[in-house]
């Protein structure tokens, strides 16, 4: 699940992953992501999360996610251009972080760790 408010960023990330054989869902902010996750029949193997987003930010999304036992254990990797990303990622207890601009080899390595089986 790719969560980013920039539509071109979502499309690009989805295409990069789809080209590798993954099935990708997208959400434009934390709230859309929560709605998707609560309705989805199968949970995604990883959530790629932007932090600065309108409606519901990445920080708010993490709070909601951690309070919902059904989705709390889905690994989250933060993708952001923020300064001090390492500290931010640690503070919200996510599994990993990748700075923007993204190193695509690292992105694919990361996704491979959580989504070993291709859909």
């Amino acid at each position, binding site marked *: 699940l790719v969560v980013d408010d*920039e539509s*071109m*960023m979502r499309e*690009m*990330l989805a*295409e*990069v992953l789809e*080209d590798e054989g993954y099935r990708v869902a997208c959400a434009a902010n934390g709230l859309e992501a929560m709605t998707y996750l609560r309705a989805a029949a199968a949970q995604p193997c990883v959530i790629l999360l932007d932090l600065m987003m309108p409606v519901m930010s990445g920080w708010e999304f993490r709070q909601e996610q951690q309070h919902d036992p059904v989705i709390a254990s889905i690994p989250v*990797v933060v993708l952001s*251009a*923020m*300064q*001090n*990303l*390492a500290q931010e*990622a*640690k503070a919200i207890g996510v*599994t*990993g*972080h*990748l*700075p*923007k*601009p*993204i*190193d*695509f080899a*690292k992105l694919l*390595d*990361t996704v491979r760790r959580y989504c070993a089986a291709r859909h």
Partner: protein
Amino acid sequence: LANEVVLRSREREQALEREHATATENARLYQEARDALRLRDQFLSIAAHELKTPLTVLLGNIHLLQRRAIPHEPLSERNLRTIHRVGMQAERLNMLIGTMLDLSRLETGQFHLEQVRLDLGALVQRVVEDMRPMSESHTIVYTAPDRPLVVHGDVVRLEQVLQNLLHNAIKYSPLGGTVAIDLACMEGMVRIEVTDQGMGIPQDVLPNLFTRFYRAPNVDYRNISGMGIGLYIVKEIVTRHGGRVEIQSAEGQGSTFRLFLPEPDVDDLFNNRDARAEDEEQQQEYLGGR
């Protein structure tokens, strides 16, 4: 006499008032200057952050084009070159934005190192191998002792230092030639030496070379672009590792940059083993870096 005393007292009072007014004005100007600097740094930081989003999309699409071109319908040589040029320039923009952000971090005290135990030899070798394809007219020669050279350092930042010195060596040797990088151990320090056969630097300006925004006077004549920030950041990174930077050069005779980084002593390695293991685990866990 009484009149004179009153007169002098009044004069002194007026002088004190003037001094007070000047001091107040100076304090106000000082505060304004500080606010302006803070705003500049904030602006730099926000601008760099905002620039990264379109850059990410741009780089992502270049990645897609390159990945898709190879297995299915190979693109023509001309189109491949076009994509390559777009990619190289986008990477260049990325480096420039990174440099601006580093400058802002240094100014605002937010420049932090994430240090782990690492083999400097392996790191240098990797950087050299990554750079070889970018410099067809230069020969990069790498020499090092046949054993690990352990330092306690920030992998990403030391990589940045090495890339900067090698880029400079190539950039300021426009006619090509050999760029030599040599590693050695001496007196508890690991020394990295980068030597080029380029245009060199006039000796009288060598002390200014690590100053922010400074560029050597013989550079402008040859129209080689740059911001004069790279070596300033190199020095900051090396100093924050407890090391130092030296330079030896003369105009027209090439340059040698020497970095010295402290080798952790055996007791230190032993005492910090747990902390280090924790650092390394954390690095593994938190993929990426900055």
